[in-house]
């Protein structure tokens, strides 16, 4: 580990961590896809309830999105407000 700038190492690992954090986006993607598919099904079955179905689906999607947003925020913190850089001794 000689000659390796600890700051650069932490920043590089943080970038990798940010990228890994964004894997959290898979979950909401699948979940919202399910929600949208079920919504389309529901609209196909009951076209007259389109408005209610759409708003319910959007609300559900928004809640399902939370986990993905948490991942995004973690990535943002690692990229723009890295708390680990301050921990480097010296």
């Amino acid at each position, binding site marked *: 580990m000689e000659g390796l700038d600890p700051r650069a190492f932490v920043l590089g690992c943080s970038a990798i961590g940010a990228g890994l954090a964004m894997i959290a986006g898979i979950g909401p993607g699948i979940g919202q896809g399910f929600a949208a598919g079920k919504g389309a099904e529901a609209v196909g079955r009951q076209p007259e309830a389109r408005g209610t179905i759409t708003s319910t689906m959007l609300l559900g999607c928004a809640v399902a999105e939370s986990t993905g947003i948490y991942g995004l925020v973690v990535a*943002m*913190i690692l*990229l*723009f*407000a890295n*708390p680990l850089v301050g921990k480097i001794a010296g």
Partner: protein
Amino acid sequence: MEGYVIILDQHTLVLVAIQLINTCVLCFALSKLLYKPVLNFINARKEKIAEQIDSAEARLSEANALKAEYENKLKNIDAERIQILDEARAQANKNSQLIIADAKTEANNIHNRAMTDIKREEEKARDEIKKQIIEVSAMVSGKFIAANMTEAEQQQLVDDTISDLEGVEWLN
């Protein structure tokens, strides 16, 4: 120039406080300036419209009641008219019969009167003729008798004859 994307230190708290004040000021201002007055305006209008619809409905039901009443009346009027006509016809019939009866009796009366008149005239004429015959016969008999008797005897004779005649019924 310095900047931040995410900060999690004491500056965050200050910025949150500033934004909190901003949000509260904006919400208060928009509520006071726009939301409440416009909503009050809309609600006042809604109430007014509801009132108008209510009054219109009340008037409509009133008009419907009036209409039903008048229609009923009109139907009754038809019946009444028929009744009146019937009554009038019956009355007229009665009247005409009365008039005809009157006229008949009148005509009868006139006829009778005319007959009595005729009879009277006949009698009169008969009387006249009788008188004239008497006169003529008297004259003729006078002339006959003048040749044979005096005036007194003649008169005596005529009176006797007339008194005799009064007892006898004339033929026709």
